[in-house]
């Protein structure tokens, strides 16, 4: 039992290592391949605004709530897709109409988010 157990453990470890390499790999490759001498005239490389002008004032301010509601609609559908991925893997094994109905129900309930956001006027982008 422990062989299969340690086998699974290796799979998980390999999976985590792959994820980590995928995340940190570019930083290492770029550090190795980037040219270390860059040409500067006003050493403004770090400035995050790219229109050529000095940024005026600060952007850390109280935004209107509309942005928050807009982000919520995105998160709702991100979760929706998250649950659909495993379903898609096993969807065409032995197909039963019950699967389809469940899927439609699931997506239907989640699309109520749009109806709610529509009623709350998120998409008209009114100034609060």
């Amino acid at each position, binding site marked *: 039992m422990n062989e299969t157990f340690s086998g699974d453990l290796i799979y998980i470890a390999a999976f985590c290592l792959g994820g980590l390499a995928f995340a940190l790999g570019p930083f290492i490759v770029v550090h190795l391949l980037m040219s270390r001498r860059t040409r500067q*005239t006003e050493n403004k490389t770090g400035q995050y605004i790219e229109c050529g002008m000095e940024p005026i004032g600060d952007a850390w301010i109280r935004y209107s709530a509309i942005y928050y509601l807009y982000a919520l609609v995105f998160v709702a559908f991100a979760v929706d897709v998250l649950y659909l991925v495993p379903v898609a893997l096993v969807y065409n094994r032995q197909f039963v109409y019950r699967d389809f109905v469940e899927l439609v129900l699931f997506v239907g309930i989640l699309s109520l988010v749009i109806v709610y956001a529509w009623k709350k006027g998120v998409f008209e982008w009114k100034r609060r």
Partner: protein
Amino acid sequence: METTVDTSRIVQFAKLDELLALSRANSLWPLTFGLACCAIEMMAAGGPRFDISRFGAEVFRPSPRQADLMIVAGTVNRKMAPAVKTLYDQMLEPKWVIAMGNCAISGGPFVFPGQYAVVEGVDKLFPVDVFIPGCPPRPEALLEGIMALEEKLTGKRRWPVVTPPK
């Protein structure tokens, strides 16, 4: 202002460099930096007849972070010079500059005793790789400039130089 790119990297490969140079030469992403009349000829070069995408350079990026070729198309004046230098800094190495038109080369028609506004030549601000004379230069001249830059990068010229018949 030396103009060769000193790519003193930690890891260097002989053969890979040639491949890198070839791939960079054939996918120069210009920065949409049209200042004046030359900008319209640059747009015409992007148009269907002169078709800059034959050289892989049709992707005009507005943001300096994603561009590796700055085509200075027009007059740079003293109020604009700090902005141009900031944009040059924000471009990532390796980066190249094409000075398109007489204004970018030497101030062009706007140089006269007592002129107070025009920077006489972009190479006073940062190193320039290719100069394209003309006011405005024809789109074919811009394409020739891009081919000259490719030759500078890869060392060999992909298209033969067309010599006018004797």
